[in-house]
């Protein structure tokens, strides 16, 4: 699993903190149960200034998770300014005229609140976890920094160094992350999903205060945000609180439709090899260009979810069974699907060969597993296990208010609606074996893919040419 998560982790960058769990949750896409009396009763409303609010009650503990999600991510950046969405996320902690730098964090540090923020290609989110009586306080602060940010070179420039160190830590120091960037960049011929969320190094180091403020003024406005609150609150309480805080924030911009350059129909089987002297365990990863929950025809994204489970999730998956257990040619193998995305997304497969096993052997095995599913489909038992897993996650999620808040926030900022999220389990249940087979046949076509080989040294003949 390490490689799967590393592969997609490049898409998500936090101000500080782990990201693997978040990515894992998002990779499962929209999946929350709210049908009938089973799940929590969710409130959903929009303030006159355009801010959407979602409330997910959970009264077991007097704690609240408060999140604000902006519908802007790295895919909304201007070419040449990669990393700007994430850089701005860091700078959002630098204070406003009303609440100078540090006051918000100090307030949280005093009341025992946790905070963080994260950025992906499609959204930027900020959250606090607090005792419920402090909800009005954090809403005040968060509403204030929605349009009141003040930046100076004194705090912008050291923060850019922090981001460069984050780049060093996440990317430069990690061969797995480096090849992940290369595969994504090669897969997307036209769409900005090919750019790393953290940005290209030479562009990050030139980002400045003016860039950040221009981006901020363009995208940070109540009509471009969703507030998600999970925990010991009711919809009515939250409605009154949001009207008093966020409701006072005027729109500062009209936000254009999120239209990014789209991918042409892919036609070439692409391969790339990256050498890094630190590679002690070679690996292979392949990404296919596939529909997301937002771009797919009805049922297609759900079928891809099931396909990813059957092919690549855990020890019973086809890839693990074939490569690791039966053929014994790999130490690990699996697959994933990133369903939550505004535009066309990725389906990935990966494997780490045992010593002495060639990539050709590994690829033949992977191709064989995929061809088998495309030609003969999957078994009823496999589909049933996959559905059970996906639907149970919705129940497990009810135990974790932060997970619930993330699912709703990610869905709503990636083109989804509350209704789509709550009906997700029903749509998963409805997936047929034919739909799964058809998804494999249609989308796991090698011409839609890039395969990356991570090695310690390039083969000699290639080395000579370089």
């Amino acid at each position: 699993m390490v490689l799967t998560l590393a592969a997609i982790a490049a898409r998500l960058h936090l101000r500080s903190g782990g990201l693997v769990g978040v990515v894992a949750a998002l990779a499962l896409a929209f999946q929350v149960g709210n049908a009938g009396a089973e799940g929590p009763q969710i409130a959903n409303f929009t303030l006159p200034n355009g801010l959407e609010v979602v409330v997910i009650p959970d009264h077991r503990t007097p704690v609240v998770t408060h999140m604000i999600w902006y519908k802007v991510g790295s895919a909304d950046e201007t070419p040449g300014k990669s990393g700007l969405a994430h850089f701005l996320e860091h700078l959002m902690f630098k204070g406003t005229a009303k609440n100078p730098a540090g006051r918000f964090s100090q307030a949280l540090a005093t009341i025992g609140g946790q905070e963080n923020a994260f950025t992906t290609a499609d959204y930027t989110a900020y959250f606090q976890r607090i005792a419920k009586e402090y909800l009005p306080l954090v809403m005040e602060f968060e509403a204030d920094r929605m349009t009141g940010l003040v930046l100076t070179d004194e705090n912008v420039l050291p923060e850019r160094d922090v981001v460069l160190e984050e780049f060093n830590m996440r990317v430069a120091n990690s061969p797995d992350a480096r090849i992940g960037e290369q595969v994504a960049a090669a897969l997307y011929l036209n769409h900005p999903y090919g750019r790393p969320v953290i940005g290209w190094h030479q562009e990050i180091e030139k980002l400045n205060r003016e860039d950040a403020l221009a981006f901020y003024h363009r995208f940070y406005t109540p009509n471009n945000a969703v507030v998600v609150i999970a925990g010991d609150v009711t919809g009515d309480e939250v409605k009154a609180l949001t009207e008093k805080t966020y409701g006072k924030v005027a729109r500062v911009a009209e936000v254009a439709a999120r239209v990014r350059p789209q991918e042409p129909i892919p036609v070439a089987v692409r391969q790339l090899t990256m050498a890094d002297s630190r590679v002690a365990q070679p690996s292979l990863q392949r990404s296919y260009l596939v529909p997301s929950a937002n771009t797919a025809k009805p049922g297609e994204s759900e079928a891809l979810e099931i396909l990813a489970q059957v092919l690549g999730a855990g020890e019973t998956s086809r890839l693990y069974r074939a490569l690791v257990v039966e053929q014994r040619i790999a130490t690990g193998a699996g697959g994933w699907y990133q369903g939550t995305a505004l535009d066309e997304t990725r389906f990935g497969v990966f494997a780490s060969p045992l010593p002495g096993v060639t990539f050709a052997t590994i690829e033949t095995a992977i191709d064989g597993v995929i061809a088998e599913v495309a030609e003969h489909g999957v078994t009823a038992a496999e589909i049933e296990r996959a559905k059970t897993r996906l639907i149970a996650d919705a129940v497990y999620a009810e135990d974790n208010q932060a997970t619930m808040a993330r699912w709703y926030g990610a869905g709503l900022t990636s083109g989804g609606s509350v209704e789509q999220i709550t009906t997700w389990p029903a749509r998963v249940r409805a997936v047929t074996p034919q739909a799964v087979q058809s998804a494999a046949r249609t989308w796991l076509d090698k011409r839609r893919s890039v395969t990356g080989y991570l090695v310690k040294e390039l083969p000699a003949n290639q080395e000579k040419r370089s």
Partner: protein
Amino acid sequence: MSFAPRLYLRRAVGALVIVGALAAFPPSAGATKIERIVSPSGIVAWLVSEPSVPLIALDFAFRGGTNQDPAGKPGVATMATALLDEGAGDVDSKGFHERVEAKAIEIGFTATRDYVSGSLRTLTENQDEAFELLRLAVTAPRFDAEDVERIREQTLSGLRRATTNPNELASQRWWATAFAGHPYARPPRGTLESVPTIAVEDLKAFTRKVFARNNLKVGIVGNIDAATAGKLIDRVFGSLPANGALSPVANASPQGLGQKIAVDLDVPQSVLMIGGAGLLRKDPDFMAAFVLNHVLGGSAFSSRLYKEVREARGLAYSVYSAVMPLDYAALFMSATATRSDRTDQALEVMAGEIRKMAETGPTEEELAKAKSFLTGSYALRFDTSSKIAQQLVQIQLDELGIDYIDKRNSLVNAVTMEDVKRVAKRLLDGKMLITVVGKPQPAAAPVAAKGG
């Protein structure tokens, strides 16, 4: 879910395992009642019955983790633990995984330096199957040759990756030096040399000596009552031997203090680890040390190390310190990662902050804020069933008593300025052992040994 900044610590420290140190256990809230239950066969467990979500979370731990590895064979505990769900009783590996997945049951095991811990999460409607599978894994792991070889290859693959990972190298060198000759020096996952030599009999011997009822702590949370919980606990653990056969482990203090060890690795960003002696969990000053550390490097976005290393100078993305009580040693640890050419500067700033804290302690305002944060954030460690179950086990392992949750915030509030200043001298005024992994830098003046 690694989500909160706190968890970053766990990731950044790699092989280091932070145990009871993050001691802000569940909350006051009052909503939760912990029952001490005794199963029909006499196994004690702590239970929080919570009917509102249809699931059950069970956590448990056996005392005796990788510190029980045979001296020449580090990696046995980790490998044995990884094999528990790879076939047990009459069920082979494939069958076991299929049954777990068929009911969306989550079963996981981990070996840390002092414990083997496990967790189970299931929908209440599947409780019989879930507890049966857990019983098989704990009491009848098969260790079939084919599965052992597969897990061995995966372990070796991970160890190969670690050979060029700066965090892993910094951590390995630190522990190997600080605990030379002691079980804590052994890499928990083993080595490229030791793992190939581990035999099935080593794995079986490990479970025989560690998996016993007298070593066991259990916490259960969820939609289950005391009588049912007692029966299910017996079903899982009841057939284990009453007593284990743990090898004695000596108490130890970190060695090599005052040394700075450099490991060359061609990476753009160097990793720095600074560590010294800490306070045991049962030390009367432990809570004072915990509060003090919060001010120095425990707080995610307002510690002194955060402000000086990251915010003011942009030297690093991640910088922290932690108090880390183990069963047989106690540590203070601090770490960061920074651009190669700024390594010396980062080390100087960190050492300076540690020294300053040792000499003058926190300000009144810092102390008040730290206590306020630690008491106020208590409830956040209490908001999922799994988190609560983990804490029920940890409090038992730390022998803090079933009323600890009610007392904990008053223990934090009782910490005085005098306490933290006293403990600052104990914790931070000694020499430290430093490991630095990265590109070799031109020789610079040695860093003052005191405080780092």
